């Protein structure tokens, strides 16, 4: 092993960790929604792509950088998620899984193809002024955009943690997730809490989209890939666990970057799916999930 190789490896790991933070934020949205409502959001990647497009549109039409438009996008996604849950998903909460799947598949189809109809099939890029800046720590070089995106993702995750542990609404949502009947008995408005949760989950993925566009160009066809990626991350980390989603994001970010370095790039997601199979079989509750979460 030469020191050149070790440096390249360290570089790939660093890059993977930074991208992984954004992955983690995306997966956090999926995990929150599932953890509370037991609904699998099959439209997650599609929502991500819509978030990326909104940040792109804000940048190219109004010259607002994604980090500035992010709070607005998150707010908009919160409202959309809230209404979506209230209007469409709410009646399906206790329906069989295949019906929930079909409903979210329909929503996913509408979102991805809505994006295609409006923005077209070409890939869209956000070219920031800081595009080529970097931070150097010893021999390692960190892309500035990646560092900013990762720090923002971490900050949002921290805010979310504060929301769930410090606010009344956040605690009430956790109570409803732990014990649905109990929450009803003590008089919580579970329907409103569910809508709120879907809003929070949507805001996470919208924010993740606004960050991701600074790293990766967007096309409508990325949507299905992101949905699968979010599934892999939450299963590996533990479906319904918040720290698990972040850890899973980092793990998948690093494994993709390292596999991209060592193997052909086309094989890197094979590695992720292989990891998904192993975790599903050996530890279906995920690395940090609870046993009864199944």
């Amino acid at each position, binding site marked *: 092993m030469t020191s050149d190789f070790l440096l390249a490896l360290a570089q790939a790991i660093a890059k993977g960790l930074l991208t992984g933070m954004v992955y983690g934020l995306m997966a956090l949205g999926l995990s929150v929604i599932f953890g509370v409502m037991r609904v699998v959001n099959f439209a997650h990647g599609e929502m991500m792509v819509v978030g990326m497009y909104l940040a792109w549109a804000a940048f190219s039409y109004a010259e607002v950088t994604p980090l500035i438009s992010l709070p607005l996008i998150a707010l908009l996604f919160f409202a959309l998620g809230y209404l979506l849950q209230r209007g469409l998903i709410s009646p399906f909460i206790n329906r069989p899984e*295949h019906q929930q799947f079909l409903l979210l598949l329909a929503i996913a*189809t509408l979102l991805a*193809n*809505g994006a295609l109809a409006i923005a077209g099939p070409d890939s869209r890029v956000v070219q920031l002024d800081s595009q080529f800046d970097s931070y150097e720590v010893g021999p390692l070089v960190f892309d500035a955009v990646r560092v900013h995106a990762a720090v923002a993702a971490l900050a949002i995750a921290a805010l979310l943690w504060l929301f769930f542990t410090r606010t009344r609404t956040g605690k009430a949502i956790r109570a409803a997730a732990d014990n649905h009947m109990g929450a009803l008995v003590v008089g919580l408005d579970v329907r409103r809490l569910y809508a709120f949760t879907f809003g929070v989950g949507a805001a996470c993925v919208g924010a993740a989209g606004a960050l991701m566009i600074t790293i990766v160009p967007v096309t*409508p066809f990325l949507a299905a890939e992101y949905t699968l990626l979010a599934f*892999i991350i939450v299963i590996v980390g533990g479906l319904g666990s918040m720290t698990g989603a972040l850890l899973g994001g980092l793990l998948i970010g690093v494994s993709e970057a390292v596999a991209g370095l060592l193997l052909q790039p*086309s094989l890197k997601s094979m590695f992720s*799916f292989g990891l998904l199979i192993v975790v*599903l*079989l050996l530890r279906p509750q995920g690395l940090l999930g609870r046993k009864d979460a199944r």
Partner: protein
Amino acid sequence: MSRLTAGVPPRVLVMLAVLLALLVAAPALLGGYGLSVLILVLYFAYVGQAWNIMMGFAGQLSLGHALYAGLGGYAAAGLYFHYGIGPWAGVVAAVAAAVVAGGIVGYLGFRFSLAGVYFALLTIAFAEFTRIGFDNWEWAGGSGGLFLKVERNVLDIANLRGGPVLFYYVILILAVGCFVLCRVLLESKLGRYWLAIREDAEAAQAVGVPVLRCKMLAVTISAALTAVAGVWNGFYYNNLFPETAFGISRSIEITLSPIIGGLGTLFGPFVGAIVLTGMGEIFTDLSDWLHIAGIKQIFYGLALLVIVMYRPAGVWPWLARRLGVEERRS
């Protein structure tokens, strides 16, 4: 034969006979376009029926059925392409490959007692894993795809080379055969066991149903039938790509006819295939006229939304009630 038709009202038998006669006569009655649409309907009815065995009868949600269709298609097409072995022999290899794959997915999933969403994710993971594998496998053509030679104006039944009429009759026989098989299975002891497992697996286990063996039979039978559809599909279109053969969109496509038509019913996949293919054709025309990218899929998504909102149990149970030909609840 008598067991097959036991409990079916004579009126329904007459209707089925008329329907079958119309389907047999269809190539003479329809033009080229009409026949191509009907071919699609029968294909989706067949493959939906195959998926329905696993989900509709035994209650195991698979979102990775493209794995079996893709393996089947690649096995038969690869044997024909490389060694000139015709699809009638190739289908044996195709079924064997799919049964092995289904056996592995099923055994691992059931043994480690994954249920519902977790099992569905496992099936997706295996299909995607295989897709990427085929992307990088030279023998199967890699991501550039595998192409069968297109021969015009030949009728070579031994190698399944010919025009739409040949493929129409093959898929018609498959669809009718699968329909009859499903009826037989549902009426058999195995079928009863499946329904018991679907409704409550723990209770079924408690009263002595061999749950694991029944689930394994469901997944392997379903995989075998799906592989045959994959072979037909590969030879009909003359090309195979990992993305279209194993991709998640193909798996979803397979599930739609039975879900839209009515899960667990015999006629559901057929009705669902008519609804979906019909909608697809109308929306294609509409989008040709509108010239907006993605508009076809938007209409499609809206239609799915309307159906799942207002007919969550599927179109067929509702339609059957209207026609007075309800299937016995299964």
